[in-house]
């Protein structure tokens, strides 16, 4: 077996080991399930309201949109967070000190982060089915759409997460990313349709992946006639593939450059310096 193949397989195993350990860690489980519970409670109380212009449950429209948001959180923020933390504690430097270790590390992280995102999706969807009407989960075409929307969403967001993770050195600065993402959620039609917003805000939202992730998940899980109340009166799959694809290409071109730059700059004294900083923060 070639060294690269070996590292690839080691990376897959690495992802599996870390997945097992994250699902046996109370803190992690809490971090995964608490937002899920909040979301489900919110959706539960929204189930009586209707999507403007229809008699369809607003709660049932929100759940798929929030699943799209979950992909962004899991893929983009999840990976960025891992990179920042692993840089601070020396995991990345360890990977660098090992032949093809960076490759294995990255594969492991991708396995971990995308598995967590997909498991999260199921965990949010399953209880929602119990009290929400109108989600077309029995329809095979829904699963067919999910089968390409979810991977496309991950391919569009994971490289962005890698880029952000390579650029941020101090875990405290993660806030710089979370803030704009929060703003984006407000204008991306996750919790309420954005047809009422000013045109320029709608336009801004449609530049970023979040709007399209929500739309994609709605197109998979909602009945076809709900497309009528979306912008343009359609699920716009073509535009969705174009925008998410563009983000994916951008990320896949830039992420390796930034990851390499980050890896090159990693050294023991940098890890030690960061550690000292962290200690001062605590003390």
């Amino acid at each position, binding site marked *: 077996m070639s060294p690269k193949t*070996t590292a690839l397989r080691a990376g897959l195993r690495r992802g599996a*080991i*870390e997945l097992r350990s994250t699902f046996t860690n109370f803190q992690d489980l809490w971090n995964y399930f608490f937002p899920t519970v909040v979301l489900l409670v919110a959706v539960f109380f929204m189930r009586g309201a209707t999507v403007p212009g229809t008699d369809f449950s607003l709660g049932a429209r929100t759940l798929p949109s929030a699943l799209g948001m979950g992909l962004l959180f899991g893929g983009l923020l999840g990976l960025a967070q891992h990179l920042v933390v692993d840089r601070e504690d*020396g995991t990345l*430097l*360890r990977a660098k000190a*090992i032949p*093809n*270790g960076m490759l294995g590390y990255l594969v492991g992280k991708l396995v971990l982060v995308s598995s967590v995102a997909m498991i999260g999706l199921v965990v949010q969807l399953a209880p929602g089915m119990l009290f929400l009407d109108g989600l077309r989960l029995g329809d095979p075409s829904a699963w067919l759409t999910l089968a390409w929307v979810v991977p496309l969403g991950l391919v569009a967001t994971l490289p962005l997460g890698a880029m952000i993770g390579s650029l941020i050195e101090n875990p405290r600065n993660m806030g710089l990313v979370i803030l704009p993402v929060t703003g984006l959620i407000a204008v991306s039609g996750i919790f309420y349709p954005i047809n009422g917003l000013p045109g320029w805000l709608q336009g801004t939202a449609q530049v970023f992946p979040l709007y399209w992730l929500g739309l994609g998940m709605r197109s998979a899980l909602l009945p076809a006639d709900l497309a009528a109340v979306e912008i343009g009166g359609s699920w716009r799959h073509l535009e969705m593939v174009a925008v998410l694809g563009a983000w994916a290409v951008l990320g896949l071109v830039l992420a390796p450059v930034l990851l390499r730059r980050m890896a090159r700059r990693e*050294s023991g004294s940098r890890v030690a310096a960061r550690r000292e900083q962290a200690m001062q923060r605590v003390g």
Partner: protein
Amino acid sequence: MRYGTVDVLNGIDLTAQRGEVIALLGPNGAGKTTTIEILEGFRLPSAGSVRVLGVDPARGDERWRAQVGVVLQSWRDHGRWRVRDLLSHLGDYYAPYATDRIQRPWPVDDLLAAVGLTAHANARVSRLSGGQRRRLDVAVGIVGRPELLFLDEPTVGLDPAARREFHELVHRLADLDRTTILLTTHDLAEAEKLADLIIILANGRIIARGSPDQLSRRLTTDAEIRWTCDGQRHVHATTDATSFLRDLLRERGDQVRELEVRRANLEDAYLALVHEEETGIRTGWAERVWQQEENR
């Protein structure tokens, strides 16, 4: 090597033989870690040429990386992993680099036994004590059976028993596996015990080098004699204090007052050096002592 405009390393000239244990000895801030990071390929020198296993470490490929083991000063990584899982996982990357002569990776059970972690094989890394964690670091450093091993302050935080076990492990690696080892320490006794060659760094320069034996022989033969004669202070350095004193007393026996003979030993000279670094007061005495010996 340069930070901003300050040269932190100057004229470090260093060659290692296979199976040799070299100790970089020096007070904190002497440039030990910088030197070792350049050799590990984790840091670029601003000038000069570096060859490690025949390759410029800044351009070392994965095959080169597989032949080099690295143990850094502080790791906190992989806290959630179990000791055995971590070693077996990290060992996997080395399997393609096995040769007829060197079997890679080191089998996990043997490795655990070698570093004394067998009892903790299934413990989570975050649950290890400081000393156990340090042994794990060493185990990770040698899991690929490196030809060259870098150890940066390997025994910091080890209790005396663990320290002695570690010393035995270093000897074993060097003698049985013919691993070349470069370690940094600020402990002279440790350098004397472990190293075939001691290199003393201060202010980013090599101020002395030699086997422990050579270094100590050089210095302990040097004595400083002070006395007062007709109200005037005299100082004389010699290698043969006894015959100098015999002559001195025969000639001016009655006038000699306040006679003092002082032997500088290895530890005195080193402690003086550390003291200078730590107080920031550089009298230069320590450095002069080392360099006089170098020139003779």
